[in-house]
């Protein structure tokens, strides 16, 4: 018995010659490709804008936005400033030995992971919020990076003389 007849006998479905076959090239689906993109994420390496800020009483604070640099100066200096950002996570400066602390040696900034509070210690006329680590920083610069959909609380106690010029960007 030939192979064809044997398969016909056990019920292998034969192509119906009356069925019109498509002559178009089937479109390749992504799940048929050998290589596929399975996930996409991002990691901030530069400044990211902060969208909104207000002081502890809910009053709007002035945010001097600089879209070109992503550096935002929050003023006037309030007892605390809440910054609502489109980003959610604060990243420690990679040059900092103690993760969670911004600032290099004076550690003027710390980050409480549990409630996402950032507390700035110092007395300044103006805060600038650097929203990411950046290369080329010096020991007097600090930076934070945030991801989306959380609130940060920036506050200060105004007791430390902090000679950082936070308005400086790169």
């Amino acid at each position, binding site marked *: 018995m030939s192979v064809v007849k044997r398969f016909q006998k056990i019920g292998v479905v034969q192509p119906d010659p009356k069925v019109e076959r498509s002559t178009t090239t089937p479109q390749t689906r992504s799940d048929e*490709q*050998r290589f596929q993109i*399975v996930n*996409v994420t*991002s*990691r901030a390496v*530069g400044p990211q804008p902060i*969208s909104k800020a207000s002081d502890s009483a809910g009053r709007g604070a002035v945010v001097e936005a600089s879209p070109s640099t992503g550096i935002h100066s929050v003023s006037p200096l309030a007892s605390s400033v809440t910054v609502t950002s*489109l980003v959610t996570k604060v990243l420690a400066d990679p040059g900092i030995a103690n993760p969670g602390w911004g600032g290099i040696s004076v550690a003027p900034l710390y980050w409480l992971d549990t409630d996402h509070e950032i507390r700035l210690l110092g007395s300044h006329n103006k805060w600038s919020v650097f929203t990411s680590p950046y290369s080329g920083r010096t020991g007097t610069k600090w930076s934070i990076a945030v991801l989306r959909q959380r609130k940060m609380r920036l506050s200060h106690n105004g007791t430390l003389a902090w000679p950082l010029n936070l308005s400086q960007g790169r």
Partner: protein
Amino acid sequence: MAILLAKGTKEIVIIDVADDTGSISDISILSPTYDFITDANVFIYTAAVATADGMQVSCLLDTSASGPSGLLAVGHYRLFIRFTIGTELPRLGPVDVFIRDTNS
């Protein structure tokens, strides 16, 4: 696949790649590059060298004024990656990248 970037940001977009055959486990040795293109087919990055760690390809996108095309406008962009395997040159994408202005 889509990702949202704030205008003026400079970020590494990390793309995880899978090989159905399981024969490739490190793209870093396959000369990965990437293209970043506007909707009008203007190339912001053309065959820029990407870094890779295992099957993760990292593409640096500088949308700030210091970027290759200056400060990028809000809108939709496309990101492609490619690498070389013998005679094959897979080009994966597009990854939709949306740049938004969060200050307005």
